[in-house]
Structures are given as C-alpha cells and as structure tokens.
C-alpha cells in the first residue's frame, strides 16, 4: 500500500482527518514503520510547539504584574512631568507677556486652591517681573545650547528610544529644544492662529489669551491665562496657564500645568497634568493614558488606557477607561455609565466616599483602601522616624563642623544677615532649578547640572542645620565659641525647628523660611568667600 503524505499525517496528528480516512491511516500505520515514525515525530513536534508556547516569555505579566509594571512607569512619567513643568518655568522667562494678577483676595495660602493660585502667581511674577537680565542671559545660553544640541541630540535619539526614565528625561529635554530650531514665537496680549492659518513650526505663544483655531504642525507651547485649542495641534501641547480648553485635536501629548483643564476634543496620546480641576468631557477622547495630580477630576469621556490620579478632591467617572483606574483622593464616584477595562484601585479617606453605581462596569479587581489621615501623631513609628531624622541631622551637623569647621561656622553666622539671607535664599531656591535646566539642555552641561542638583539638594538639607545652630546660639548666648557650644546650639535649635514644623500651616511656612534662610546664608558665604581676601 502506498504511504501517506506528510500533510495527511499532520492532519491526522492534529485530529483533523475525516474519521474514515483516519481509520485507514491507523490501519496503515500498523504495517508501515516509515509512516509510524513520521507520525510519532509530528506528534512530538506538536507537543513541543504547545509546550514552548505555553511558557510565556518572561515579560508576560501576571495580573498583579500588570499594575506593578505600570506603577514603575508612573514614576518615570511623573519624573518626566516634573522636568516638563520645570522646563515650562524656564521657558516662561523668555516672555514678558503675562501680567500680575491684580485681585489679591484669592491670595490665600491656607486653602488648596489658594496654594495653587500662589504657585500660579509666582510663575506670573517670575515671568513678568524684573527678569530682563535673566532673559538676556537665557537667550544667549539658549542659542548656544541649541547649536550644541543639534548634533548631540540627533545622536542620542538615533540610539533608539530606551525606556529608562533618565534617558527619557534627556530625550524630553532634547525634544523641547530640537524643534525650537524652527521655532515661532508669538508674544502679544492675544495670540490667535486663525482657522485658515497653518503654523509649520513649533509655536511658542505667550499672552493673555492663546487661541488656536487653525493648525499647528509642530508643538504648541503656551503661557497664558487662557489657552484654547479649537483647531489642531499636530505635536505636543504644553501649557502653563490658568485655564486650558482643548476642544479641537492634539495629535501628540498634553503636558499641562493649569488651574483648570477641559478636554472636549481628541487627544491622541497621553495626558500629563497638574491642575486644580481636570475634566475630560463626554466628547473628550484620550488615545492613551492620563497621569495627573489634581484637585477635582471628572472623566466623562473615553480614555483608552490607564488613569492614574492623585486628587485632593473628588473624582467622578462616568466615561470609559480602557485599563486600570488608580486613584488616591477624597472621594470616588463611578456612575452607571462608567466602564473600567482593568483593575480599580483607590485610596480614599473613608470607605463611604466610594460611590460605585451598580451599573458601573469594572473588568478587573476592585481594591478600595482607606487612607487614615489623623493617625500620624498617634503612631509610635512617627516618633521613631522623627528621632532618626533628628539624630541624622545632628550627626550631619557634627560631621560638617568637624570636617569643615570654618565653613560651617561662617555659614551659621551668615544666617544672621536676616533679610539678605532670606531674599537671596528665595532667589536661589527658585533660580537654581532654572540654572540647572539651562545647563542641562546643553549636552556638555548635563553632568554639571546633575552636580548642581546634588549641591542644591544637599544645601536644602543642610539649611536647617545652619539655621538651627544659629537659633541655638541666639538662645543660649554661649560665652565661648567651642565646637561643643556650636553643637549644643544646634541640638536646641534643631529641636525647636523640628517641633515647630508640625504646627499646622505655620509649620510649613516656617520650614519654607528656614530652607530659604539657610540657602541664602550658604549663598552669601559662597559669595563672600569668592571675593579676593582683603589683607589688613
């Protein structure tokens, strides 16, 4: 009898041969060794295929892995967000378009919206007031940076998009500077791109109102009280504004730092935002995810991927979220029309602040936890932490005194310069990040900016030590000036500062003042030390 073809044998092994033919083949196999071997080999092959495929590649996530991985992404994204915002502040120096808000009644640092307002006001001030010298400086540095960047940036981008936050930060920085080669600047009371107008470059716009009715082919970077996108932005939309409204299309991402953001139209990629009120209306569509820190959040539209929200107020969802919804906030409401394609994890103040309608659809798991607020002072761990921090600060102070006695003593004395230190401290605190970013956008300057950052953070940490030691000295009025006296002063001063820090509201202000004073003293001392010594 003639042998069967391999394909027929394969069909038989897959169980796909017609019953009568399968029977004939089985009969044949009894007598034919060659076909029997073939069938055995095919069977083994199938087994191998199945087994190989069943073992998923390492990267395949378990359900838990989904959220774990995503969380690590969030950190990266948040880091990117932080840099973007910082970058926004530097770019804002370039423009003088914003006016200082006249009404001061909302200038109340004790409410959440007041704090946000304070921040916006600071940006306003920064952008408009007395920065002429900085503007010139930034313009020169920026121009040189651009030239350097063109080569280096292209090289880096060509190496492929690695998904490391550090590299992504750099790429974001580059992405910001590269298109600005073909950058269009508009700086007026009201900047409008009319419906029939197309801007081919990246548009950097500053004014009271920025209104896009036409098409921007590059990115739109806007600083204004009101930013409205009614037309199309083909690149990313970066806004620093009081109010941002997108009812047109953004084909890139949105990075926003606004008091309110309303997305009414189409966003093709991610939305990163810090906003007092963030709203995706029922006509709004986000092609990827949302990462936001906001007061109140309303999601009525459609978000294709995950939503990660840190909210200080309420979160209302009545639209569709393609994947996970992760929120930390006061209250969460999911209406009947809400759909979550992945897991829901929420951290709320109280369990009864979670309102999930029966009709709401959640494909994955629900994990709602209560975030207890007042427990801080009740927990022994809190005191333990404080003790550890306190001891660490003392130790650092002592080490500083032993290793750099002259420097530490002198800086402590400079705290006594009072307003000079305080003013300079505020300037350093806000100006140093700007300087770092200016340095960072040149490839050569990147390591320098990292070093500056390390120095900056160290100085912020040391600020309380210098101020503490100064405070202690004022109170103790030691007769001598031994290391022991200095250290005793530090002990007392730090203790006071540590306790004061936990006074509601006032503590925060005091802490801020301490950081500024310390930083200022550090800067004053550096300045004095850098001047040629006058010999007597």
């Amino acid at each position, binding site marked *: 009898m003639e*042998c069967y*073809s*391999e*394909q*027929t*044998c*394969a*069909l038989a092994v*897959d*169980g*796909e041969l017609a019953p009568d033919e399968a029977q004939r083949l089985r009969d044949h196999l009894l007598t034919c060794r060659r*076909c029997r071997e*073939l069938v055995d*080999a*095919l069977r*083994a*092959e*199938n087994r*191998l*295929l*199945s*087994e*190989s*495929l*069943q*073992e*998923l*590649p390492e*990267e*395949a*996530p*378990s*359900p838990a892995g*989904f959220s774990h991985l995503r969380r690590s992404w969030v950190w990266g994204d948040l880091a990117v967000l932080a840099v973007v915002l910082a970058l926004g502040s530097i770019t804002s120096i370039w423009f003088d378009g914003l006016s200082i808000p006249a009404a001061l009644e909302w200038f109340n640092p004790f409410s959440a919206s007041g704090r946000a307002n304070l921040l916006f006001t600071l940006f306003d001030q920064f952008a408009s007031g007395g920065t002429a010298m900085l503007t010139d400086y930034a313009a020169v540095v920026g121009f040189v940076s651009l030239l350097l960047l063109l080569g280096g940036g292209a090289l880096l981008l060509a190496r492929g998009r690695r998904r490391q936050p550090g590299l992504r930060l750099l790429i974001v920085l580059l992405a910001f500077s590269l298109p600005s080669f073909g950058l269009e600047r508009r700086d007026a009371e009201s900047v409008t791109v009319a419906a029939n107008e197309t801007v081919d470059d990246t548009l950097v716009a500053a004014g009271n109102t920025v209104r896009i009715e036409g098409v921007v082919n590059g990115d739109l970077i806007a600083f204004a009280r009101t930013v409205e996108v009614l037309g199309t932005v083909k690149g990313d939309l970066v806004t620093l504004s009081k109010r941002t409204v997108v009812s047109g299309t953004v084909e890139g991402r949105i990075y926003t730092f606004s008091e309110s953001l309303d997305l009414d139209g189409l966003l093709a990629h991610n939305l990163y935002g810090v906003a007092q009120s963030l709203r995706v209306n029922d006509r709004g569509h986000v092609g990827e995810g949302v990462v936001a820190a906001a007061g109140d959040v309303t999601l009525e539209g459609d978000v*294709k*991927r995950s939503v990660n929200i840190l909210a200080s107020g309420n979160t209302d969802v009545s639209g569709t979220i*393609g*994947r996970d919804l992760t929120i930390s906030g006061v209250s969460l409401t999911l209406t009947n029309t809400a*759909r979550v*394609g*992945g897991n829901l994890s929420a951290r709320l103040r109280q*369990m009864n602040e979670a309102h999930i309608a029966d009709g709401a*659809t*959640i*494909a*994955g*798991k*629900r*994990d*709602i*936890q*209560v*975030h*207890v*607020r007042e*427990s*801080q002072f009740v927990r022994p*761990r*809190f005191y333990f*932490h404080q003790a550890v921090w306190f001891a660490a600060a003392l130790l650092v102070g002592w080490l500083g005194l032993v290793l750099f006695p002259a420097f530490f003593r002198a800086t402590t004395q400079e705290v006594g310069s009072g307003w000079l230190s305080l003013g300079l401290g505020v300037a350093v605190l806000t100006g140093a990040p700007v300087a770092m970013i200016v340095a960072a956008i040149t490839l050569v300057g990147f390591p320098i900016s990292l070093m500056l950052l390390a120095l900056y953070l160290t100085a912020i940490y040391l600020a309380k030590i210098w101020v503490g030691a100064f405070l202690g000295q004022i109170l103790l009025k030691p007769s001598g000036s031994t290391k022991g006296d200095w250290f005793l002063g530090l002990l007392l001063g730090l203790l006071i500062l540590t306790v004061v820090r936990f006074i509601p509201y006032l503590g925060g202000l005091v802490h801020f003042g301490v950081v500024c004073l310390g930083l200022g003293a550090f800067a004053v001392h550096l300045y004095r030390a850098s001047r040629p010594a006058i010999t007597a």
Partner: protein
Amino acid sequence: MDAKSNMANEPQPREGESRKMEGLGLESVIQRAQIHDAQALGEIYRRYVRRVFGLCRYMLNSRESAEDATSEVFLKLQRSIESYDGSIPFPRWLLRVAGNQCIDALRRRQRGQKVFVEVEDGAVVVEAASSEPSPLGAVISTQEKAQVRDTIARLPENYRVPLVLRYYGELSYDEIAEELGLERNNVAALIFRAKQELRRRLAPRSK
C-alpha cells in the same frame, strides 16, 4: 513622606466574597458572571488574564497592543459572556473571542490590506519525502523552547497567527478558518507551511 505609613491595612471590601469566589467551580463562576456579578467577572479576569494576554502577545507581537487587546476582551466579555452556552469548554471559547479581537486588531493595523492570504494550492499535498528538514526533535531543553518561541514570534503573520491559534489557543482548523475568514484547506496548508518554515529556521540550531 509618611503617606505610605498612614495607609491603613484595612481589609478590602467584600474580601470574603472574593475569597469565596476563588473556591467556586468554573461553572458557577460563569453562571454568576452571566448575570453580571462583578465579583465573578473579576474572578474570570484573575483566572484567565494571563492566558488571554499570552495569545494576544503571540498574535500581535507587541506588548502594548496585546495589553490593549486583553483589556478589550475582558471589557467585551461583560456583555458577550451571556452568549456562552457551554457547548465548548470556556477557556477555548474565551480564547476564540480573544483570537477574534486580535484578528480585528491586525486588520485595523494593516488597513485594507488583506492580512491572511489564501495559499494558491491550499489542498495540494506536499510530499513526505520532500527535502524539508524532518519534524523538530522531541527532546528540547527549556532554553531551546525559548528559541522556538522567538522563532515563532518572527514568523510572518500569515503563518504565525494560525500556528498560535492552533497550538496555544488549541482551536480546531474549522474554528481558525472561521476566525480568519479562510477555507479550512487553506488553514491546514498555512499551518503545515508554518511548521516547515519553523523547521527551516530552526534547522541550523537543532542538533
């Protein structure tokens, strides 16, 4: 900074119920899911998300798209589970749904172009004594399994998708034919050729 330490480790709501769900047989979980019991749907998600993701991952060859497709499958499941009648095992039914989702995604990706082309000589018998390498050996280490997997991932879509549906999704030729919109003969030929191509690509490596 202390936010984390402030998070109370309070029991999750209805935790007991979700535990109970874990102990339930598949049949009762499905029945409850069919009447839109959120816990039951969550349990199905927990049990099968990995398997569905695996299929999507193989079929779409992209982690991002696979995650999208997986989410879509489970979202749609809320409605489509009503139509599950128990005539085939649930995992297989679910993988068929997932397969459909992926094929839609592939079609969307290649807008208009035909993803799965019929082989001209669908039913033509390939001779057993052809010069193609013989079927892959059975004794293969874990590392080599990874090689097999990688090689499958690099096969053209036309070959990869039916192969994955057959040997990962364990669908029958008829089911695959229905999903791909092809004749059964074509599916048989595609799978056969996929295997031959796989052997050819793995041949220099196998001992």
